[in-house]
């Protein structure tokens, strides 16, 4: 295995984790619609119990995404988290309040009241996907940072990565295209959330409402997603000269990436088709409740291809718009060959991990959530 191969491989794994995370944001999407999908406390409780059996997987995927980025691309980890401080902190705060909301909301002794924790779930349900999407938008639209490794020994200010403005990450939200992607991810999460709840909760009223809400959330999702995709296809991109590591602006870079890596384009289009199939068939057919599976798998494929397009084929995946040469590429931001190799060995555990998650998920979901389940069985 060459160093270049390991770099590409780890970009693939990080992209895969990101793609799985976007799929798993169905937890957030469904929570954000808690009051529209569930009209009374009992219905809401079913929804919360349904997402409540999956939220830890989403949460863990986010944490592992952070850990894997740290191990494989530490310069991204230090530059982005340390620079776009507020963007990441707000995302993290929203996940902190989410983590206790399931366990605490229906317990005796909850001195903040049930509503507080329901609102925590909704806040996380909106802020989480929106800002994560916005953060991914900067992979294409650029951020304001400078990396100067000699700072460490300059004797004045030792920090090597610093942000170019006082926004510390919130500046990402001033770029409309980051917002477009952020809202696209939010509406996608809501679409997936609806599809998941329709599948996982056995309740006629919720399913009927789901069908209606699905239309209202799919339309903005499709419009925003297509808009972002077109924007990416026509915009200038950040390319890197592989021999010298010099970064330069290349017109239509991302379009070129998709034509150079045509297989990604095919997989992505297949993914998009699967998402649309899952949505449309659920809307059209009353008895069809398995839309989450094609739409979920399609989401993973689509996001995977978009993230691969951002990093593969000599592209700077984390571009700096104030100092082009500070932009991060998978080659200049990755770990040493030894570490990437070691971690590649560790990554052989991943199929095993996926297998037991799927098995446990399957066993636990054999019986759908219904009113009887939450009144008699174990429930939040």
């Amino acid at each position, binding site marked *: 295995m060459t160093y270049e191969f390991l770099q590409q491989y780890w970009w693939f794994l990080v992209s895969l984790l990101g793609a799985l995370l976007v799929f798993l944001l169905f937890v957030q999407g469904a929570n954000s619609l808690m009051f529209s999908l569930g009209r009374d406390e009992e219905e809401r409780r079913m929804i919360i119990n349904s997402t409540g059996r999956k939220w830890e997987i989403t949460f863990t995927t986010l944490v592992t995404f952070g850990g894997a980025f740290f191990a494989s691309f530490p310069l991204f980890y230090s530059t982005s988290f340390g620079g776009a401080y507020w963007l990441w902190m707000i995302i993290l705060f929203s996940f902190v309040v989410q983590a206790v909301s399931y366990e605490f909301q229906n317990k005796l002794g909850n001195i903040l009241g049930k509503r507080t924790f329901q609102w925590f779930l909704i806040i996380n349900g909106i802020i989480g996907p929106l800002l994560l999407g916005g953060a991914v938008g900067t992979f294409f639209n650029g951020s304001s940072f400078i990396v100067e490794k000699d700072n460490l020994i300059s004797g*004045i200010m030792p920090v090597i990565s610093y942000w170019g403005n006082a926004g510390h990450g919130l500046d990402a939200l001033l770029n409309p295209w980051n917002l477009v992607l952020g809202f696209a991810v939010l509406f996608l999460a809501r679409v997936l959330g609806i599809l998941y709840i329709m599948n996982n909760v056995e309740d006629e009223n919720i399913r009927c409402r789901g069908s209606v809400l699905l239309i209202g959330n799919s339309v903005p999702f499709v419009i925003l997603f297509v808009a972002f995709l077109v924007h990416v296809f026509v915009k200038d991109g950040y390319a890197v000269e592989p021999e010298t590591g010099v970064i330069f602006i290349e017109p239509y870079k991302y379009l070129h990436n998709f034509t150079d890596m045509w297989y990604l384009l095919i997989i992505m289009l297949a993914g998009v088709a699967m998402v649309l199939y899952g949505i449309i068939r659920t809307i059209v057919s009353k008895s069809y409740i398995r839309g989450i599976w094609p739409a979920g798998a399609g989401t993973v494929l689509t996001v995977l291809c978009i993230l691969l397009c951002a990093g593969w084929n000599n592209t700077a995946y984390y571009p700096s718009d104030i100092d082009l040469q500070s932009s991060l590429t998978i080659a200049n931001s990755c770990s040493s060959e030894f570490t990437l190799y070691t971690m590649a060995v560790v990554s052989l555990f991943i199929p095993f991990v996926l297998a037991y998650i799927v098995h446990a998920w399957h066993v636990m979901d054999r019986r759908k959530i219904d009113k009887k389940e939450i009144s008699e069985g174990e429930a939040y």
Partner: protein
Amino acid sequence: MTDFLLNIDTAAIDWARAQFALTAIYHWLFVPLTLGLALIMGIMETCYYRTKKQFWKDATRFWQKLFGINFAMGIATGIILEFEFGTNWSNYSWFVGDIFGAPLAIEGIIAFFLESTFVAVMFFGWQKVSAGFHLAATWLTGIGATFSAWWILVANAWMQYPVGCTFNPDTMRNEMTSFAEVALSPFAVNKFCHTVTSAWIIGALFVVAVSCYYLFRKREKELAIESIKIGSIVGLAASLLAIHTGDGSAYQISKVQPMKLAAMEALYDGGTDQGLTAIALVNPFSQPEYEKGGEPPMRISIPYALSFLATRDIHGYVPGVNDILKGGYPKADGTKEMTMDEKIKNGRQAVIALQEFRHLNALERQNQLGGDGCQRREALKRVLNEKMPYFGYGFIKEKSQLVPYIPLCFYSFRIMVGLGTLFVVFFMAMLLVAYRKKDVTAKWMLITGMALLPLGYIASECGWLVAEFGRQPWAIQDMMPTWVGVSNIGSGSIMITFMIFLALFTTLLAVEISILIKAIKKGPDRE
């Protein structure tokens, strides 16, 4: 010789440290109970699996309910720690991310998924999966949590005792050279054993305290007695193991972090035949004037004990704060420790050599590096190989920066050890009463059982205070002081996030305690 005009906002460093301390201390309020209760629940569910007695199922489910309330807080306070290295310690994250990132990623891949997948089966799977699968899920949740402790403690141990890496001047960072040395570092093994056994003590104290409450109220007698038996066995075994591993830990510290040991002991001037201070009057509110020498007033010590603890020889030499600041004292292997002036000189030479090396690299990029330059660069590489282990000393302005805050280390250490010893006695007494009299009714004993729970948490947190304050100023021992590891964020921003964390975690802690108390008062559900 360069003199650093480090232009970092000192308030930003203090707030970043405060924020890390706050989030880590809060996280550690919940983790030990997770680790400890997981073991006790596992034992109880195994009893149920083997005997099929309904009693054991009810008992398991009761403790699992309390486990779940606490577990949620552990997760909520844990996520931030995964990202805080990047947000607040970005320079650190680049400088050693090649080594430090790996255990964090492995923790996610191997441990967190195990924990988060099977915890859902454990809570919601009683009627959905077979008894055997459920038992496996309960144990796997605990094993996942314990694996996660392993990897995060590997990471922590590495900061205290950096091994298995080398500095690469081209990339300006440390790079891993041996995964085995990092993952199986003796410091990590000992830290893991000491930390996990101490967590089991908390689990045992919790179970015993809740059971004592029931006996005090004269209810749930069977549950309480059986829980006390299991809890006390676990607690006694864990306390004895914690003492054993703690002793090993002190021995290791004496070798790799002598300043921490000196600060723990408030030992200003060392020597041979050192006694272990049992208690002394160290002003808790200000750094003592160690440079004047002598020993703290009212000192009562156990003769020869410190020498034995640190060197395994009652006549062994233990350096004090002033000896370490001066250097040149004899080491156990017969050699002499380098003087501190020399370490600082080496550190500065490393910095200067690195500056020149980077300059030559820049020239090379512009194709202006001639043959002389190449030779010079090779020579610099050799200098760096030799001097980089002292790199961190290049950032030290005054030697006093090398001394941690002694009163905190001194008292935390004493509280931890004193309470640890008390727990051994307590669990022994509990066991004796529970097994011989079959009935624990003595009121003083029940009150003691309840009162010891908060002391358990205090002892546990004190252990971390010793470990983390004792290594100041180092983020990474000898390689990077805290003020070089920070991010370039204004102190205002960090102060605001600190306040948000403080308010949020404190509020949620209040809710958690309130819910726990209600759940305990309600008692176990019976099928």
